[in-house]
């Protein structure tokens, strides 16, 4: 299955990059104005025309896309006009930090969501279930941006225990693991918590349903230990819908990361994506979109593989 999916990914990525070029070309944004910024407000028309020629943005859509594609395949991702540096450098500087943030947040959401879901399902209607479910519904509706500000207010201002933004302390130039770890806590916590309700609600429902099934009743009747029932059986079948969720949450995670990176001044790819889009920075935008699409495809593949592992009835080539 993995092989087939990988073959399939090629055309998808091609289509997506072409789509990005097409949409960007149709957008009302002018790459020359975006490049010039405020200086463009006082630049003469002749100067703007020269800039347009230098930036090479007047070619037809297909030609630009083909040029980008052929040079990308040889490893040259082009130059980002908005960052004034090669696209490869932009990605190298930022992707790692975004991945670190997303992985920590994802791990937090999956682990805590599962644990809480199982506990809640074990005693449906109990105080823990009611409290966490209510909280989960609230969090589902809460904007990530607002959660971020709330977290800064509480942990950084009221308690003064965690830094409120950046990758390291503002006055620190060296990126040390300790510094990054402490600065990662709040953004990862906020992003993780914003994703947690989905996992919690799915696991809770799945496990609760499984606990109601005949095999569980039978096992209980035979006196099988409660822990084995819960972990060996109910969790296993209750996890199935959640595994699908893992893949489908990747796009959410990417958009959520955008807001979180903004609130916490986290130097990831998210801010670069927005800048690239509003500045019609084709090379950077295409590279970022390819990365995001690849992440989504990989997420889906992963969840399908996990699903197959968890449920033997599902064939890998079904």
């Amino acid at each position: 299955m993995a092989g087939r999916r990988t073959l399939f990914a090629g055309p998808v990525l091609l289509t997506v990059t072409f789509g990005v070029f097409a949409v960007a070309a149709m957008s009302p944004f002018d790459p020359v104005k975006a490049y010039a910024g405020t200086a463009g407000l006082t630049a003469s028309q002749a100067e703007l025309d020269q800039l347009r020629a230098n930036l090479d943005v007047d070619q037809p859509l297909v030609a630009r896309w083909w040029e980008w594609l052929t040079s990308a395949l040889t490893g040259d991702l082009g130059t980002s006009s908005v960052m004034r540096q090669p696209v490869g450098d932009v990605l190298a500087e930022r992707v790692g930090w975004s991945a670190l943030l997303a992985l920590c947040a994802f791990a937090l959401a999956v682990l805590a969501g599962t644990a809480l879901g199982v506990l809640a399902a074990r005693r449906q209607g109990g105080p823990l279930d009611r409290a966490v479910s209510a909280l989960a519904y609230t969090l589902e509706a809460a904007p990530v941006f607002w959660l971020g500000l709330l977290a800064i207010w509480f942990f950084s201002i009221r308690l003064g225990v965690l830094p409120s933004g950046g990758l390291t302390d503002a006055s620190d130039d060296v990126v040390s693991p300790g510094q990054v770890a402490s600065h990662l806590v709040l953004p990862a916590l906020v992003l993780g918590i914003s994703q947690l309700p989905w996992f919690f609600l799915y696991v809770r429902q799945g496990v609760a349903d499984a606990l109601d099934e005949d095999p569980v009743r039978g096992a209980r009747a035979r006196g099988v230990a409660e822990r084995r029932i819960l972990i060996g059986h109910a969790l296993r079948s209750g996890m199935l819908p959640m595994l699908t969720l893992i893949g489908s949450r990747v796009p959410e995670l990417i958009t959520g990361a955008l807001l979180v990176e903004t609130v916490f001044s986290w130097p990831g790819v998210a801010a670069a994506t927005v800048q690239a889009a509003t500045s019609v920075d084709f090379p950077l935008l295409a590279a970022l979109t390819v990365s995001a699409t690849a992440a989504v495809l990989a997420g889906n593949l992963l969840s399908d593989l996990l699903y197959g592992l968890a449920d033997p009835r599902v064939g890998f080539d079904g």
Partner: protein
Amino acid sequence: MTARSVRAVAATMLAATLLTGTAACSAPSSGGDPGRAADTAVVGIATEPESLSPLLGYGKDGNSKIFDGLLTHDANMRLRPALAEALPEVSADGRTYTYRLRQGVKFSDGHPFGAKDVVFTYRTILDAKTNNASKTELDAIQGVQARGDDTVVFTLKYPYAPFAERTVLPIAPEHIAGRQDVNSGDFTTRPVGTGPYVLTGWSKGEKIGFKANPTYWGGEPAVKKFTMVVIKDDDVRATRLRSGELDGAILPPALAKALGGKGGAKGTARTLHAAKTFDYRNVTLPTAHAVTGDTAVRRALDLAVDRTTMVDKLLEGAGKPAYGPVPTDSPWFTAGTERAYDLDQAKRILDGAGWKTADDGIRTKDGIRASFPLWYTSGDKIRQDHALAFASDARKAGIEVKTEAGTWEVIEPRMKTDAVLAGGGSPADPDFDQYLLLHSTLAGDGFNNMARYDNKTVDQALLDGRESGDPAARKAAYDTVQRELLANPGYVFLTHIDHLYVVDDKWEGLTTQVEPHDHGLGAGPWWNIENWKPKRK
């Protein structure tokens, strides 16, 4: 194991995991830094430059920290020598500027600075292949030559009195910047200059770090470490200032008033600094529109706006009424061109010109309704407030202004006939701003002269002001421009806006310069951070 014990174990494990997790994470934390030494400064800014290369426009108005220009400004915006030994010698015809260079200056990599670096910098910026969007500002230059290693001579296409103001732009080292792609090379993110500070790191979207240059020709700065943290959102910036992570920040009026002068998180006092500016907000009155093109309507609108109330209500007092591009406290301002809010006079002018009030309270003349659209950039709160206030004031005089929000992409094609809530302002010289804003040859050229103002007297005065080397003649020329704007306004100027900064009370002698419309990295009380001294306790 019973159900209860399973639950207890699970709960304990979860709690333990969460606790150790939190403890492990918070152990190395240092949210806010109570003991930060006074030789370290951290400030919050709202926007960062795309590039740190002067060849692409960084620091063109001076104060670039990493670099020096031939000249620089003092606190009163007077020109002072920097990399030049003295102010330039100007030839009698105003077309040759000769700069003698300071000797013994070195770039921070140890390489000596010389005339070839100056020539390289200007020639590269003027090169058509260089993507520098501000090169129009150097339009007057015909050529730049080195004479020996210590003299640089600029020749101009036309006499240009304010040219020396342009030579505050930073000088790049030829031995580094000359060996790479000027538009995307390393130099755009890792620059080397002669300035008081050396770049230690630039994490785009997060912060820019500097350390004092120990071999700076002007003496090593007392503030050894200086960091600019990039925080777009006003509330987040205010929050991080409050938490003690920042020593200072730029803030909008409401937040600045709430934080300035109050005790900080660590018991430090904070001071509110209000920088006077040339930053105006105005309404363009397109000449091509049947309503806004009528001089009577223009004059009436100019009198019908209540500028004082705008300053009090929209800017919370942090600004002043504007009657033209020049603020009232500038030496270039023409006394007597202030106009008081006079709704009755506005109505009389409209009545006299034949604009009759119809049943719905809006005036008409020859079947034309006194109504026009006014665009403002969406998301800009200050412009929106100004647009709404302008519309409400105009309504009282019987003129309907329909406000609409849009991005520049939407607004630009409509600028010929629709009014726009615009902004601008450049303090260094009246020519920089007014020539672009008012000269008829620039009507509709990009964003220049958006209203397509066309006034022969003003055109001539702008030319006189630009070319004359005599300060008295220049003052007279710009007086003429301001008086003409009173008789036939092409724009209704509303306010000049103060830029507000809140800074911890740890240093001595903080000042602000008069600031332009857009505030680059060099604006704010840290414009001369190299001269700050820690306060003695």
